[in-house]
């Protein structure tokens, strides 16, 4: 596998899968904060 292929793979996979994991962990964190604060349901 050449260098440019590896770079492209890292950028694409890193952005998409990395982004997904990043946003997921943030969502878990904020959801915990909301639960602790007892935010209004509806």
């Amino acid at each position, binding site marked *: 596998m*050449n260098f*440019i292929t590896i770079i*492209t793979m890292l950028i*694409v996979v890193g*952005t*998409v899968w990395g982004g997904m994991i990043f*946003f997921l962990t943030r*969502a878990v964190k904020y959801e915990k904060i*909301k639960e602790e604060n007892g935010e209004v349901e*509806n």
Partner: protein
Amino acid sequence: MKQEEFFSSRWSLIIATIGIAVGTGNIWRFSRIVAQNGGGSFLIPWLIFLLVWSVPLIIAEFAIGKSTRFGPVGAIAKTAGRQFGWMGAFIVFVSTAIMFYYSVVTGWCLRYFISAISGDLFSTTKHLEYWTKFSSSYQPLLYHFISMVFVAFVIYRGVSKGIEKVTKFMVPSLLIILLILFVRAVTLPNAIEGIKYFFTPHLDIILNYKVWLNALTQNAWDTGAGWGLILTYAVYMKKKEDISLNAALIGFGNNSVSLLAGITIFSTVFALSTSNAMQQISQAGPANTGLTFIYLPLLFSKISSHYIVNVIFASLFFIALFFAAVTSLMSMVELTTRTLIDFGIKRGKAIIIVASLGFLLGIPSAIDLKFLTNQDWVWGVGLIISGAFISFSIIRYGVDKFRKEIINGYGSDVKIGKWYNFIIGFLIPVQVVVLVSWWLISSVSWDPEWWNPFHAANAGTCIFQWGIVLLTFILLNKFMVNQTLKQSN
């Protein structure tokens, strides 16, 4: 109208909305488009359009649905003004028209799952004949009926007992199955050649404008952004739910699945193909079924020397495809049902109307692939216009006001900045104009009778069908908006 149905949690909302976004487009269309557009050369623009088309429009849909608590007709009327309710009606119609043939496609996936698990799929190596025999029989109609009845039952049960329950099972199952197939695929001998092709960019291809337009199209058709489906599910969001972070999760989640499926398919095809692998992935076949229903079944028969292993992997693939299709179909049926509920019809009666019409008006697509291809073309490009109408609504409301009051309002975990104003107010409309123009102008080159409205895929058939729909809804605007908004009084 007091909103009575809600998703029980943030995670239920996210799973259900990922169910909207992840469909057959991720699993079968994505790989074909990557192959036709130079592998890695396609992935870079595809990534860019995730950020400047998909995520911003998902944010818009979540925000409009959550703040108005109406399906598209009422939502657009409340956001842009009562005189623009017809735009919402067009959004509903486009997704409904897609529902008619998407139910047929869902039926194909179910039938092929049954064929795989029963072993019938491996009774032949002549898969083009197998497909032709199936598609010209009564079976597409039967499985279209089964798909529509199943989805109608789910929607009848409502948000928490229906949509939530089913998506909580199907979406995680689909992801687990894709992971199993991914691991198997990348560990096949020679799979690395597929992965290399998938990620290798070529400068001359990446500078070709067509690759960029195909990347934008794939994002537009794949994520469900701008279709009105996410807007509909957002009606059932609790007030405390965040908009922007959830939207990012949906967009990135959808593209993650595409990536997983793409690597799986490229690895499998390169590992098991005896002839030109790229040609096999790129082939469209009748109604774009080539790769999925003709070539992959052949490859599944070679995945192992053990028959039962081949049956298992083929069954897993087609059940994953079925789950992806049915969770998307559910949202289309819910959108139309929601529109009727907004008109004052109770859910039970509304679903009977929608399911009956859905089945009847899907019959032409079930029995004639040319008709299905026409509808896929007309309403597929029509979806871009739906996205434009959503963007327009926010521009009419005031983009900055919308961002501050609604997107960054109560419940927001993250505040989005002024970059959003630029994307919604300028970039999205520019992308719409460029994309619609490109598709219509391209159709002039592949059909000399580009003006003929009775041809399968040209500018004439789009303009003719869009024209009828738009004119009808513009004339009925006052009635539709009054009927919808009076329910809230």
